[in-house]
């Protein structure tokens, strides 16, 4: 599940990046580019220290950079510890900001890339649904589970409803000018994401020529993620 899922996300992101950066929406081109990256320079997990940020203040600042300051300043912030994400700052507006690592936030080829740092701020609905998957996956990975074992555990938890379905209105901001998405997509375009359970991407007109909406549906996680590019970074500067 993990390989299929991340590959699909990578294709999505690549096509998205191509569209935004190069002005083309050629999905086939993106898939071709993925095929060329079939071998990975990161075949195994690196020492955990390499995934951690030694400066907690820097991780908090990077996490917050995912959303405009007007949102992020009152958000809860999680930082990565040796066993998973931990609350570093208590929030008061329902949003939660974190810096995603490679196993949740990069393409397959970069699954173990210890340099990956992807800031995101999820809203309250996503914090109660989508984010639980991110933190659960992270905990499993840091406990030494393989990708396959992690996928299996997550799928089982969803089937048993230990992990909830996406809550109505779940969305997140990914507008940071900083961060690193891995060799495949070094930097993501500024965008919003919307999370649904078991929703056909066609319902939003996603992935069609000229559509500003991109989507990826993962049937095993019963998760559909919609992506809409925005024109500014979180600091208000122009992103195109």
């Amino acid at each position, binding site marked *: 599940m993990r390989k299929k899922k991340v590959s699909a996300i990578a294709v999505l992101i690549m096509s998205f990046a191509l569209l935004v950066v190069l002005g083309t929406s050629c999905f086939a081109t993106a898939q071709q580019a993925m095929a060329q990256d079939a071998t990975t320079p990161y075949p195994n997990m690196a020492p955990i220290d390499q995934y951690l940020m030694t400066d907690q203040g820097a991780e908090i600042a990077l996490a917050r950079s995912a*959303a*405009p300051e007007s949102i992020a300043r009152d958000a809860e912030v999680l930082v990565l510890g040796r066993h998973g994400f931990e609350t570093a700052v208590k929030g008061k507006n329902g949003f939660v900001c974190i810096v995603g690592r490679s196993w949740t936030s990069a393409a397959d080829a970069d699954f173990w890339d210890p340099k990956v740092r992807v800031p995101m701020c999820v809203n309250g609905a996503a914090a109660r649904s989508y984010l639980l998957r991110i933190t659960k996956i992270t905990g499993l990975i840091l406990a030494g589970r393989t990708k396959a074992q992690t996928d299996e555990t997550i799928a089982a938890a969803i089937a048993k409803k230990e992990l909830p379905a996406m809550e109505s*209105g779940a969305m997140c901001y990914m507008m940071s000018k900083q961060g690193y998405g891995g060799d495949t997509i070094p930097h993501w375009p500024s965008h919003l994401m919307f999370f649904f359970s078991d929703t056909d991407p066609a319902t939003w007109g996603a992935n069609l020529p000229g559509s*500003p909406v991109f989507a990826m549906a993962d049937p095993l996680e019963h998760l559909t993620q919609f992506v809409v590019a*925005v024109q500014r970074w979180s600091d208000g500067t122009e992103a195109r």
Partner: protein
Amino acid sequence: MTRNQIHSILLSTFAIVVALIASRPAAAQDAKQPYPSMAPVEQYLMDRDAEIALARSAAPDAISHDASVVVLTRHGYETAVRGKNGWVCWVGRGWMAMFDHPEFWNPKIRAADCLNPPAARSVLPYAYKRTELLLAGHAKPEVIAAIKAAIDKKELPALEQGTVDYMMSKSSYLTDNGNHNGPHLMFYETAKDGAAWGANLTNSPVLRVNYWYISAQSYPQLKSFPPLSVFLVGVDKWSDGTPAPSM
């Protein structure tokens, strides 16, 4: 076009700048409105083929090509083209703005929309109902009361999840303000305010307006309506793929 101008257009079209309006008495607003009453119905009508083309221009051809299209007649909207992908494209008129919107009766408004299937099923019936009642000559308070009664009797549907409305037409006329237009997506939610999406905050790309009213002072019954928020996110291209002005 500057970012502020685009914001102004979007907000003018769907809500006017809430903070600005909220501080002004609604009755005074009505008195100053440039469009205090309905114009002759002919001014709201269009050539049928032109209306179909405008409606379809709300979304990329890949979506609108297979969409149903409804057009306005003297008595309400009627289906002009039967689609096959569940989407419905149409051209909204001024009265689809909030009931106390200054451009409610602006006969120049032509707001092209393509709604996805959940929005077509759960948002459009409200638009149809409102339009039919207004074209039949009912006053706004009567229309509001009739819609509330229909909601209470469940003759109008509850909002479905996952609604999206494409408004990417280069040819729409959304407001008298600014450049009159700007491509965006809209999402309908039952949220009471914009906080859940971080809307209307500094540098947020998300704007939120109340579907029913700006202040509700003129039409207090609207406060008893189920919460319905419209979230707007600007996009960088028109439906034909050409770049839009930076927001």
